[in-house]
């Protein structure tokens, strides 16, 4: 790794699923890296492969049906795709953590919050029961749960949606991980609660110096909370760059389409939205050439034939579109 600040680097990752009648290429040649203390936004629509990419990085997908025809996930000198299962288990929940859209998927409804949080510290840090409890209460306080010493003995259902999300964040951060994967962490929440949770993640990232990979479909969330952004479409990154650059000068027609199709509260009401025509591709039967060409207003014969490579327009900003090559 050239840059010593890079904590995690993914190169040419492919995650395919074999189903009864065909091959689904959910992630198809993905490369990105994250640096210490940085937030990388991965934005895309359902089926773009953004969640599968995160699950692959933590090796949380059952194989089969998933498999990786190619890819390296570099963390601390190891390739996470190739280390033994025991080794990745040690890293998960300790150095690499993940939070999900629905906290109930990662919290056990039958166990008290105390039981679930102390287990993390007992397993990874070999903490004594009393030290683990102390650590868990401290982390709950840190994520803003009032009366944490009492509430830790409650069950997940006794918390509101926003508070449950805080509990899940506390559980993920107990061991002060190097990388936090946050997969749509605020999508199920109301906007006023979303604002609280995004602010909390940003505070903790700064305090702990961790890298955050924030997966979201919401360009507004990306704009407000990330340093860099990668736009995914059909299992690939079609554009990547500094968040400011990408929003100021979106290069890929898909990124431009997403921005133009969003209603905004700061534009005149009644503006006709420029919808992206058509539908995202069926990854079991992806189109040839550029995967976006069936929906692209600028598509040429070449786009239908060849897959465009990523072209850099600045040291930090690149996009996979033949138009960019021409312009750049």
């Amino acid at each position, binding site marked *: 790794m050239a840059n010593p600040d890079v904590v995690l680097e993914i190169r040419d990752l492919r995650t395919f699923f074999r189903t009864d009648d065909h091959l689904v290429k959910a992630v198809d040649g993905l490369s990105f890296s994250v640096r210490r203390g940085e937030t990388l936004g991965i934005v895309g629509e359902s089926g773009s492969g953004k969640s599968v990419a995160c699950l692959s990085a933590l090796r949380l997908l059952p194989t089969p049906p998933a498999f990786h025809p190619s890819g390296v996930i570099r963390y601390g000198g190891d390739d996470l795709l190739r280390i033994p299962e025991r080794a990745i288990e040690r890293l998960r929940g300790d150095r690499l953590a993940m939070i999900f859209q629905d906290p109930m998927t990662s919290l056990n409804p039958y166990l008290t919050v105390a039981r679930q949080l102390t287990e993390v510290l007992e397993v990874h840090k070999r903490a004594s029961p009393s030290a683990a409890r102390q650590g868990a209460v401290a982390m709950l306080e840190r994520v803003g749960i009032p009366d944490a010493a009492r509430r830790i003995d409650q069950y997940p259902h006794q918390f509101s949606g*926003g508070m449950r999300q805080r509990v899940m964040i506390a559980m993920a951060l107990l061991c002060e991980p190097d990388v936090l994967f946050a997969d749509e962490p605020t999508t199920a929440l109301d906007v006023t609660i979303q604002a609280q949770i995004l*602010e909390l993640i940003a505070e903790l990232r700064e305090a702990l110096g961790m890298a955050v990979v924030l997966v979201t479909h919401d360009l*507004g969330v990306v*704009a*407000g909370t990330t340093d860099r952004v990668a736009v995914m479409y059909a299992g690939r990154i079609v554009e990547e760059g500094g968040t400011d650059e990408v929003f100021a000068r979106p290069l890929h027609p898909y990124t431009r389409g*997403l921005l133009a199709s969003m209603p*905004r509260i700061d534009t005149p009401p009644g503006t006709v939205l420029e919808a992206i025509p058509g539908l995202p591709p069926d990854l079991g039967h992806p189109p040839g050439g550029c995967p976006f060409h069936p929906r692209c207003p600028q598509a040429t014969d070449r786009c239908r034939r060849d897959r465009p490579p990523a072209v850099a327009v600045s040291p930090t900003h690149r996009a996979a579109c033949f138009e960019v090559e021409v312009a750049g």
Partner: protein
Amino acid sequence: MNEPASTSAPPLLEVRDLAVRFPVGRTAGLIGGPAAEVRAVDGVSVSLARGETLGLVGESGCGKSTTGRAVLQLVRPSAGSVRFQGEPIHEWWVRRGGRWQWDHRLRNLRRRMQMIFQDPYASLNPRMTVEAILGEPLRNFRIAPGGRQRQRVQRLMETVGLDPRFIRRYPHEFSGGQRQRIGIARAIALEPELIVADEPVSALDVSIQAQILNLLARLRADLGLTMLFIAHDLAAVRHISDRIAVMYLGRIVELAAAREITAAPLHPYTKALISAVPLPDPAGERSRRRIVLSGDLPSPMNPPPGCPFHTRCPLREDRCIREEPQLRDVAPGHQVACHLA
């Protein structure tokens, strides 16, 4: 159906002091003390002029969906009135065998008021073809009998941007956005005057949301629809609405023209809501002052006394804890329920 809207004409829809309360759990104790109840809607008054779109916005549990359902009499209002073209449709219920049912007038009124649902997966019968789904309302009201029905269904499909060749297909053969188009086609099949759209785009991908919002805007113009557009997404609501009502704990706390409510909100909750909506603009986001509300929504089973927002309000005064503010006019067409606004 295409009478010109004028200020003197009665509103198409007039809702007064609407309340919907749901009993929760069994009656407490053996003696049967009063059971708990959720005040889902707690005194909502609003009217819609013909051809107008009113946005109803608020967070989960604020009562916006229940308001929409009570307007259409899909749930029976516990109190208050709903008038459709002056007719008190909330009275068009009969009690049979201990249960409240629509009387024949309410059933006939379905032709004139329809609903679009949030989940295009749950709101279409998976065992029915598009032809059966869209043909059902036509059959129920004996419109286009015989061979003309298929033609009518095909025309409906074209109207909402679906390929009429897919008439024999089942819902699972369509994407989410296409399914929502089927739901919209079903809602407009009877050429209704009023449509209640409950979160019609929130289950869809961003690039598809715009397609559906544009479709709704076009249909509204072509068919002269009056619309109650319910959503939690303020940007989507603002995009399509003439006026916006903001709900909190079963009540409307602010009501104004779409442009005005986002440019000059008066209620502290509206202000917080607007400031919390993320903008796709990194520089703007950095310079924005966000009002982060503390705490969660109080339970509608046990709403706080006084102003329902006082437990989270950054401007709270003693008076707000004691006295419930009424929705009042503060400017022409701008109403707010706040002592301090």
